[in-house]
């Protein structure tokens, strides 16, 4: 190996490195993307879970939409009021009220309460079980199956299977709706935080079939509808449905319900 080889290899690598350095430097100037300062500031305020509860692809997408004015400043369900306040300070608009909501499982078909139509020994996955005859082993066709697909979907450790039914931890729940999207039975919904009286059933059968399926099923008798003075609870397609904007949480329906399916 003569000295020319050593020198030429040093020169070659140095030249390649310098050329690449200049090239990257120039192209970073040419291809510079103008980032809206507001986007970065809004993004800093957001929690960064990327849960998608706002309806956008992630926190980055929401920040962009808020900065452009396409989304409300209180769009983030995870951050709630404190985050909305911070963002409104950045954007210079009033925050508005964002009521804290939590997920709620409309089923109380525990191992004791619900009757099984058959014994299921397959994979513990609600999506699979729900595709079987009778939509899962429980006799009720609208029951929480309790195999924990929602538990897997939750990134905040806020939903757990207790006694065969999913239960939401109100303190941990951030209303990102991941469990609602994951549930094949559609028994989870968003309800106002801290509400005491809720319909704990989704059964769409009437009378005897509903009674046979579960000890605490709604049989669509209409007692709650007659009891309520605010008109906040109605029986729709054989199940009691609450209008949370009218309900004042008095609990009269809960007392009168013959099936004890309102908490």
């Amino acid at each position, binding site marked *: 190996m003569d000295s*020319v*080889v050593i020198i*030429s*290899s040093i020169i*070659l*690598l140095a030249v*390649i*490195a310098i050329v*690449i350095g200049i*090239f*990257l430097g120039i*192209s*970073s100037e040419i*291809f*510079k*993307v103008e980032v809206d300062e507001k986007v970065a500031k809004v993004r800093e305020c957001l929690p960064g879970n990327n849960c998608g509860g706002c309806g956008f692809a992630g926190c980055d997408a929401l920040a962009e939409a808020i900065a452009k004015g396409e989304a409300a400043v209180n769009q983030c369900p995870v951050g709630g009021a404190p985050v909305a306040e911070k963002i409104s300070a950045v954007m210079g608009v009033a925050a508005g009220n964002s009521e804290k909501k939590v997920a709620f499982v409309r089923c109380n078909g525990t191992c004791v309460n619900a009757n099984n139509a058959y014994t299921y020994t397959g*994979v513990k*996955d609600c999506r*699979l079980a729900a595709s079987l005859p009778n939509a899962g082993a429980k006799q009720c066709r609208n029951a929480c199956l309790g195999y924990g697909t929602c538990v897997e979907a939750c990134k905040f450790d806020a939903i757990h299977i207790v006694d065969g039914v999913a239960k939401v931890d109100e303190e941990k729940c951030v209303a990102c709706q991941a469990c609602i999207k994951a549930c094949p039975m559609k028994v989870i919904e968003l309800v106002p935080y801290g509400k005491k009286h809720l319909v704990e059933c989704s059964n769409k059968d009437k009378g005897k079939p509903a009674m046979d399926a579960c000890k605490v099923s709604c049989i669509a008798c209409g007692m709650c509808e007659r009891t309520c003075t605010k008109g906040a609870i109605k029986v729709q397609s054989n199940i009691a449905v609450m209008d949370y904007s009218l309900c004042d949480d008095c609990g009269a329906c809960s007392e009168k319900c013959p099936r004890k399916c309102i908490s």
Partner: protein
Amino acid sequence: MGVEIIVAIISAALISNVVLSRFLGICAFLGVSNKVDTAKGMGVAVIFVILMATAVTYVINRVFLEATGVFKRDLTYLQTIAFILVIAALVQFLEMFLKKFIPSLYKALGIYLPLITTNCAVLGVALTVAQDYSNFVIGMAYALGTSGGFCISIILLASIREKLENNDIPESFKGKPIVLVMACLMAIAFTGFSNLNIG
């Protein structure tokens, strides 16, 4: 020439598949194959980078490193370090370019784009082409076949892994072990292509 190009593509993609029979790029193969969507993104990004890197490194090798080049000395021992430099710079440039002109693709590829810098399949292809292929067009066909083979195998593994999720896997096999078993079975299946009589 036409036949040779097709032979180069098919043999690189199927017969000596980059992952399953040459064991290059295993890290990305196992790391980002849990969903078909991300696997597609990774596969396409790798095709893109391998093609660009091969073209540039081929020229560098021809003009500077070989004994017939500018320096009149055999500098091929510099291939590894020079090619790594070029690949890293290319990935950086590609990232900037996509961010500016095709932001949707940039978002879709996400973290996988910078990860390609460390994908040894890219360096492997660049070195193989520089050492074994004297014809530029056939070298590029080989690069296309290899990266296409990577894309095929990562998408196949991702679709198998998606199906595996609902299965009852023994405790000791959960996670990476079952993926290695799957990759192994895929490699065995791909040996079937070695009897393919082409060219």
